Structure formats: structure tokens, C-alpha cells
């Protein structure tokens, strides 16, 4: 076994363990944090650095170990980065809605329900977008 190959193996192994460790911590956060909004922080983290480290491990392995450039993995992380905030946002919006309508399936948790924003407007989950704002389809 050549020197480069074993270095590649070491680096790949380290990155995989790092990624798996973050995925594990994310899942542990999901179990132990007190309520829905706090739990939301756990999995969004695991998908960023945890997945990122594992995908970089794959790139490193093919590049240093086999001498082939692979770039698919970068695309996977790009798609994850684009979609993860939207999933988190949707869960948060459903939670806000249920807190307001008084049928919470989850307790509000230590941070409680959010205060409405200053001024006349409410959060977009509870009120249609005002005229001239991007979500105002009636004004199109």
C-alpha cells in the first residue's frame, strides 16, 4: 500500500467520523431539547456540517485514493443547503399557526409564542401579504 493511499484513508476516515458524529449530536438534540422550536435546530445542523463532512470524505476518497475527480457530492450539498431552510420554515409556520389558533399539538416551549411585529402588520402566517409586497398576488 502506497503512502498517499493510506493518507487518503486516514483523511477519509476522519471526515466520515466527524460527519457521523455531527449527525449523532443532531439526533441527540432532537431527543433532549425541550420543545418543537428548539428541536428544529438539531436536524438542520446535522444536514449542514454532518452531511458536508461525509460528502467531502467521498470527494477526498475518489481524488486521493483512486485519482478520479468526482464533483457530484458538491451538488448534493448545494441542493441540501437550498432545501433545508424551506423545510424548517414550513414546520415553524405550522407551529406558529397552531399556537395562534389554540390547537397546539406541541407545547409552546420555553420561548413561548412570538410577539407580533411592531406596527400594524402581523406575521405572514396569520395575515395576507400587504399590497406591494412580493406575496401580493392580487395586485399583480
Amino acid at each position: 500500500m502506497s503512502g498517499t493511499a493510506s493518507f487518503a484513508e486516514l483523511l477519509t476516515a476522519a471526515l466520515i467520523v466527524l460527519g457521523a458524529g455531527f449527525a449523532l449530536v443532531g439526533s441527540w438534540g432532537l431527543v433532549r431539547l425541550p420543545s418543537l422550536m428548539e428541536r428544529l435546530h438539531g436536524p438542520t445542523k446535522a444536514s449542514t456540517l454532518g452531511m458536508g463532512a461525509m460528502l467531502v470524505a467521498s470527494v477526498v476518497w475518489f481524488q486521493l485514493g483512486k485519482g478520479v475527480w468526482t464533483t457530484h457530492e458538491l451538488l448534493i450539498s448545494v441542493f441540501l443547503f437550498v432545501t433545508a431552510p424551506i423545510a424548517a420554515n414550513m414546520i415553524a409556520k405550522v407551529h406558529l399557526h397552531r399556537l395562534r389558533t389554540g390547537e397546539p399539538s406541541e407545547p409552546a416551549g420555553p420561548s413561548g409564542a412570538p410577539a407580533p411585529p411592531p406596527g400594524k402588520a402581523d406575521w405572514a402566517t396569520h395575515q395576507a401579504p400587504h399590497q406591494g409586497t412580493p406575496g401580493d398576488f392580487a395586485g399583480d
Partner: protein
Amino acid sequence: MIRRLLPHPGLTALLVTMWMVMVNDLTFGTLFLGLVVGVAVPIFTAPWWPGRPRVRFLPALAYAGLVLWDIVVANFQVAAIILFKPTRDLRPAWLTVPLELSSPEAITVFAGTISLTPGTVSADVSACGQYLLVHALHAPDPAAEVAKVKARYEARLKEIFP
């Protein structure tokens, strides 16, 4: 002529790069096919992006680097909170972030950045489009957290979306 053929040069560059990365093959044939896709898609999808904002690409690249770095650093911080901070010491809070950005694209990137950097999740935008609702996992001083997000990300986004 150039404007007719390349109505959205940024999108063209992005599509060609994505194509090359996806096909995973650095040859002339791939580049040619990528260029065909990269030129055709912006022309045919033009009706769906009226009034798109101008984007400055160099600051945008620097911003992507900064966000990646912050994701790595903040992941370690959140891991430490999850592993070692007892629930009674945790100070989760709702933050109301006043927005100085006005274009929907800029606000979307800002909200996405907040969600990706661990410890904060953007939950909602106000109906008037002037406030962002953000949940922080551990914010003993909410005002300082709001100021930090605004100075670190929003100020840079104002440069990118002039």
C-alpha cells in the same frame, strides 16, 4: 444581440457549472452540451423572472465563503450546547429582525442564511415585509443577537443586491 442571446448571464454561468459538476466529466463535449442548456434555459424561462434584481458576483462569492465558514464554527457551538448545556440554562428566544433589505430575493437569501447557520431558524416574515421572525436556540441577549445578524449578513447582502 448579446443581450437577446444571453438575457441572464449569471444563470447561464450557474447552469453550465451545474451541468459540468453533475456530468462529472471535463471534456469539450460536456462543455458544449452544458452551454446549449445554459443558453436555452434562460431564454425559454425569461417570462418567469420579470424585474429580477441586479447581483454583484464578487461580493456574492465572498459572502458564500463567509457563510460556509460560519456554518462550520456555529455547528461546533451548537453541538456544545446540545451536549453540555442543561435545559434549565438554555435561553431560547424569538427575535424580531427589522429588515433593511427590500427585494424578495435578498430577503430570501438572508432568511436562508439565518436558517443554515446553526442556532437560529427563520420562522416567518411579517405581512408588510419589514420584519423577519427568527427563533434562536440560545440567546441570553436577544438584542445583541439581532445586531450581530444584521451587521454580519444583512450589511453584506445590501452590497450584493444594490
